[in-house]
């Protein structure tokens, strides 16, 4: 599974660093390092919905507050 987080200007200001760090932590805590590939990308053109995160190409809007929920629903459930 490939998870990509936008690290462009707009998403950066909306907290992409916190989102990336949270996801890195969650992925290693759940031993998903082998099945989830976390990557970064520059602007995806959806700045209004930042922080933009895609899971296998599907776009989600995530914020530092919702990252745990997002992880459970869209990464943990699918990866297992």
């Amino acid at each position: 599974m490939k998870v990509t987080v936008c690290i462009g200007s707009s998403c950066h200001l909306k907290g992409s660093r916190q989102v990336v760090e949270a996801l890195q932590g969650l992925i290693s805590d759940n031993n998903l390092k082998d099945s989830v590939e976390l990557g970064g990308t520059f602007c995806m053109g959806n700045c209004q919905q930042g922080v933009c995160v895609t899971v296998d190409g599907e776009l989600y809007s995530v914020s530092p507050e919702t990252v745990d929920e997002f992880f459970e629903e869209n990464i943990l459930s699918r990866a297992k």
Partner: protein
Amino acid sequence: MNKLCADIGYRSIFHDGEELCGDHVDVIEQEDGSTVVVLADGLGSGVKASILSTLTSKIISTMIAAGLSLEDCVQTIAATLPVCSERHVAYSTFTIMRIVDSNEAELIQYDNPAVILLRDGEEYDYPKTELSIEGKKIFQSRIRLCENDVFVLMSDGCPHAGIGTEYNFGWQREDIAEFMKTFYPVGYTAKTLSTILIDECNRLYGGKPGDDATACVVRIRRREPMNLLFGPPSNRDDCDKMMSLFFSKEGKHIICGGTTSTIAAKYLGKPLKPKLEFVDKDVPPIAEIEGVDLVTEGVITINKVLSYAKDYLSDNESYSQWGVKRDGASLICRLLFEEATDINFFVGRAINPAHQNPDLPINFNIKMQLVTELSDCLKKMGKRIKVSYF
């Protein structure tokens, strides 16, 4: 174009309790391509010393720039400077360095500590001729310049540092030469070298300088062109034109901006690989494109670079940060401040609709303002700047 150029930087500390500096440095670039550096140290400290040294350096730099002889300059100074009511003398010592075509330097020294020249990592003893003008003993030298020569001009506040506390007779000129030798191989800029020297003086003075102390460093170095691409062109059809102009330039290539780097990656037919390392919490991660020396995010990173540039021109306190850190802004600073001498900016004027949100501090006007301010700062660092808009 001559391959060599002079990187000039200086820094002063004031006599404890004074608000003005009694030393003054002037750097004049002349139309014929030569540069005149004057370091003057006025008698005493405070307002009087400041007036004396400012007048001296302005008179000398203006007259030399106008092609007048040294004798005329010295005579004019002697006749013009106001006489101190307490000491009944008008007095300011000075060092003049004139760099012609970046391959020859003329040094004229009057009563300041003798200029230190470091060549190939060692102190180089250059010949001096003694002249007597208006009863003043003046030393003149002509020196053929070599790449990596480092000249250290200073006021007597430097060798006087630490008198009676750290050293019996202050920090001797030889000690200063030894001290500066240790930093020679690192490749610091002239500004940073002068800051290191002055910081050390301040330390020896125990943070309370007993005299104004100024160091001016002139580093002879090879010209190094650099190119920075920032923002996509306002007209989409100009992408290829902008990219081909940018990539055809000699020197290193820096690309700032997410959309901009996507366009560049497409133009080069290479993948854009963003990294996920947050080295500095304020600066977004960098990316990689094969064939590009550095790829970073745009506005936030450049904003950080600008704040470093402003500090570099004033107190230069943050060189210990951008000098070593691995975030995008620090990497740009090292390339622009330390490596580059001639910088071409390729600025795209496309408006990113997502950035025109009043909640975000990154709108179009701010972006254009950043370019103007940053190029002004770089010009003040002595760089040649060319900005092209697309």
